[in-house]
């Protein structure tokens, strides 16, 4: 593991126990569904059984008459007159005139018990006029396809486009024709991926209370308490400042908990039930049917390559459906797909397409795994055809600092070459392979987001520090932020406590998304700690009767800066803190920033598989993740991100998919049928942390959370091709598909 020896950090790079570890191994940590309040009601949601249907009548009177029912809501209980994404959120929260997908909420009930609420759903009379539906992205853009939501397209869509295209993106640079003409080999292919779900184990859950005065509170599992406060306020016609949102511990999110699904229903039910608190907990099948899966994709790629492996031109034309609303991540897919390659001629075209499926939410590096699957598969194929080592082809074309990226901006400090060199040096590359076994490699890329960030670092009376952050801790960010703050102050890791706080305690924060928590909250916390250090130096200077500039901070204490400043014994943080009440009051740092200086992260994965020629089952034999972390603040949790991302990618590549019947209804709505990887499917996941520090962060942090899900899809497809000679261009590579491909090969 490469460690940057130029920095002699005291704590950063060590692996202390996470501060919330004890709560989480004893069952004490409180998640969304673990809250109960006096007088609390229980909610249940009625959902459309049809993929697409006009709601001709809803009669809630029989449900309202059931003893114990305190509120029944329909679309009439939500705000009206919104536009843009607020309108889409409202439409998704409760269907208006038309139910747009199987599982779309139609009405909701709050009652004195879960059973009464469930029973009341059966008493809501809904009449539907079933309409034709569209599920597949390529079907949805056929000329004869019905228009699902006329008028949804934005200005980016050219006149005459298919009816369900709602957004179009196009970018590129260089002379594409000349690039292809200069190639020795030009190949193209169509690649398909199916929708998958984030698959967090904790279903969405909240306890909400809202009075007739428009003031409310909510306890909720979310990645972003401010984001959902704003969204709930918009859907319910409230003032955001009147809502106080407290994040619970969060049982996984992966992007799927950055938005709202049922939370406004709980608030609206509470308001209608006289302000009594309402608990709403989704079932697993509600999670799968009605919360954000990712998009499905149909992608065409064309690449030109010289005999020596130099890529001369690349063209991507992607279509993605993200459900019945705009928002498929086709733009991000295209930004990332060719990012590892230095290209003189590139063009990318993307279409965001509507279909009768749930509204897509972000899923770890949204879009990037699909784009990587298409591009990295084709590059592998072409390398094989030219008799070149696929790793060498990637090195030959690898982007470096100062190169123009495929999506426009010029790269700053990046670590792709270092990653590929570390792959080359790894022993997994020389492990022997047997019959029906093959090795695949692929690169991947994801950004790092800054965003609105507000943090407070308060010096405590005994010389420790309390850090308030607005980014929920999903994978160890309390630990990484505590390490950085303790490093900066020069105090112990255990002297710092990091709290994830509610919306009333800080300025607006973006969620834990975009691989930003350790980067942005961490950077703001370091700036805060430095502000507190400046103040402590000022207090010491006042005590000593010297200029503040003559004081510096070393190892947790103020000391005179050189012999000219005078001879004074160091004043420790604890000593300064003990007197702060009499020397000027509390000491804290509190920046409000839109964090800049983000550091994107490249990775490369190498996987060995064995393909069972009788069943088509693909077994992962060996798996290696190599990725640039910038600086690994807490290496164990960086490894955890790499391993978790890789395994989600393995699931996407081999098993996971949304399966729809001809009736447009989702057929696999429980974990038994929507099968995510289990322990016995997998080997250990080997990791190498490459560290090319990000100059935009005080300790060199890059975003590490998302890149890891990007390379597995193509890496595994490339390994299956190497093992069998068969190229699968449609995920997942489930046993029936692999077996069919093997039979077709003969």
């Amino acid at each position, binding site marked *: 593991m490469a460690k940057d020896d130029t920095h002699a950090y005291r704590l950063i790079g060590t*692996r202390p*126990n*996470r501060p*919330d*570890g*004890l*709560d*989480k*191994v*004893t*069952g*004490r*940590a*409180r*998640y969304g*569904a*673990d809250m109960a309040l006096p007088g609390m009601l229980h909610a249940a949601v009625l959902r459309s059984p049809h993929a697409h249907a006009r709601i001709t009548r809803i009669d809630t009177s029989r449900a309202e008459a059931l003893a114990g029912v305190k509120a029944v809501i329909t679309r009439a209980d939500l705000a009206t007159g919104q536009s843009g994404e607020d309108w889409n959120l409202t439409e998704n929260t409760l269907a208006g005139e038309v139910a747009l997908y199987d599982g779309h909420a139609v009405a909701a009930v709050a009652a004195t*018990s*879960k*059973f009464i609420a469930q029973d009341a759903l059966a008493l809501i009379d809904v009449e539907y006029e079933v309409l034709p539906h569209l599920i597949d992205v390529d079907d949805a853009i056929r000329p004869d396809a019905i228009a699902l939501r006329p008028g949804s397209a934005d200005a980016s869509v050219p006149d005459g486009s298919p009816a369900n295209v709602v957004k179009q993106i196009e970018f590129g640079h260089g002379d594409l024709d000349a690039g292809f003409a200069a190639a020795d080999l030009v190949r193209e292919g169509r690649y398909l991926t199916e929708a998958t779900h*984030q*698959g*967090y*184990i*904790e*279903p969405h859950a909240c306890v909400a209370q809202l009075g007739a005065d428009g003031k409310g509170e909510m306890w909720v599992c979310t990645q972003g308490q401010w984001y959902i406060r704003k969204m709930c306020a918009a859907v319910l016609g409230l003032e955001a400042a009147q809502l106080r949102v407290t994040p619970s*511990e*969060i*049982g*996984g*999110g*992966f992007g799927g908990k950055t938005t709202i699904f049922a939370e406004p229903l709980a608030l609206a039910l509470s308001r209608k039930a006289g302000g009594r608190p309402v608990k709403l*907990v989704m*079932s*697993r099948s509600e999670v799968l049917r009605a919360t954000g899966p990712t998009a499905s994709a149909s992608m065409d790629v064309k690449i030109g390559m010289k005999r020596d492996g130099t890529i001369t031109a690349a063209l991507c034309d992607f279509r993605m459906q993200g459900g019945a609303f705009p928002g498929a991540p086709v733009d991000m897919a295209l930004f990332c797909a060719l990012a590892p390659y230095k290209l003189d001629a590139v063009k990318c075209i993307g279409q965001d397409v509507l279909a009768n499926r749930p509204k897509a939410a972000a899923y770890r590096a949204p879009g990037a795994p699909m784009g990587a699957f298409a591009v990295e598969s084709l590059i592998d194929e072409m390398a094989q055809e030219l008799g070149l080592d696929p790793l060498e082809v990637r090195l030959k074309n690898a982007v470096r600092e100062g190169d123009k990226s495929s999506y426009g901006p010029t790269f700053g400090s990046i670590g792709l070459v270092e990653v590929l060199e570390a792959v080359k040096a790894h022993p997994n590359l020389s492990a022997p392979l047997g019959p029906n076994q093959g090795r695949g490699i692929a690169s991947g890329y994801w950004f790092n987001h800054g965003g609105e960030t507000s943090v407070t670092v308060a010096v405590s009376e005994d010389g420790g520090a309390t850090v308030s952050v607005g980014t929920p801790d*999903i*994978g*160890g960010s309390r630990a990484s932020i505590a390490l950085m703050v303790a490093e900066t102050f020069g105090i112990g890791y255990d002297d710092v406590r990091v709290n994830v706080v509610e919306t009333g305690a800080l300025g607006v924060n973006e969620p834990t998304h975009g691989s930003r928590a350790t980067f942005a909250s961490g950077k703001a916390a370091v700036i805060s700690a430095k502000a507190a250090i400046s103040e402590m130096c000022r207090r010491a200077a006042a005590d000593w009767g010297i200029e503040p500039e003559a004081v510096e901070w070393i190892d947790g204490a103020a000391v005179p800066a050189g012999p000219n400043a005078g001879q004074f014994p160091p004043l420790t943080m604890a000593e300064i803190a003990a007197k702060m009440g009499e020397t000027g009051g509390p000491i804290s740092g509190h920046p409000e920033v839109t964090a800049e200086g983000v550091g994107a992260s490249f990775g490369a994965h190498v996987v060995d598989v064995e393909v069972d020629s009788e069943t088509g089952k693909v077994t992962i034999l060996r798996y290696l993740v190599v990725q640039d972390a910038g600086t690994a603040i*807490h290496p*164990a*949790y960086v*490894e*955890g991100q790499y*391993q*978790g991302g*890789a*395994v*989600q990618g393995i699931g996407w590549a081999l098993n996971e998919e949304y399966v729809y019947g001809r009736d447009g209804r989702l057929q696999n709505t*429980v*974990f*038994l049928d929507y099968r*995510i*990887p*289990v*322990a*016995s*499917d*997998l080997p*250990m*996941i080997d990791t190498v942390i490459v560290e090319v520090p990000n100059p935009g962060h005080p300790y060199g942090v890059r975003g590490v959370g998302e890149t890891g899900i990007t390379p597995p899809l193509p890496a595994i497809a490339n390994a299956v091709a190497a093992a069998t000679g068969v190229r699968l261009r449609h995920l997942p590579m489930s046993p029936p598909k692999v077996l069919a491909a093997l039979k077709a090969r003969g």
Partner: protein
Amino acid sequence: MSKVHVSATVNGDPVEFLADPRESLLDCLRDHLGLTGTKEGCGTGDCGACSVLVDGTLLCACLVLGVEAEGKTIGTIEGLAQGHELHPLQRAFIDHAALQCGFCTPGILVASKALLDQNPDPTEEQVRFWLAGNLCRCTGYDKIVRAVMDAAAEIRGA
């Protein structure tokens, strides 16, 4: 539907509660006894987040009715540590960073304890197959398997 009086032993303590005959043991533990450490991830016995021991047998509490707990001895995550003394599995999970979001952790700890109680020296493959009924979406299982193997070695005194 009228409720049924249930007496059981949970984590060594006698308990009584009134169960709706439709209620799962999981709901009774969480809603009537305040033992929210046991989690619901699916309600269909597929994810293992609600793993508990009933008379020593590892079960998904979502697949057991509350009324079936009558006279039974039940072990949950809240009973794993003895006061401040963590079980070696709990310590190993913290030491190995074997949890990220932590939601599956209680179920995996309870299931792992059941494994080590009957097989103190499991192979990696045995750990992986035993835990195949416990879904974790964050870790990729690597650090979980290592933590269980390490805790087993510690308990054996190896």
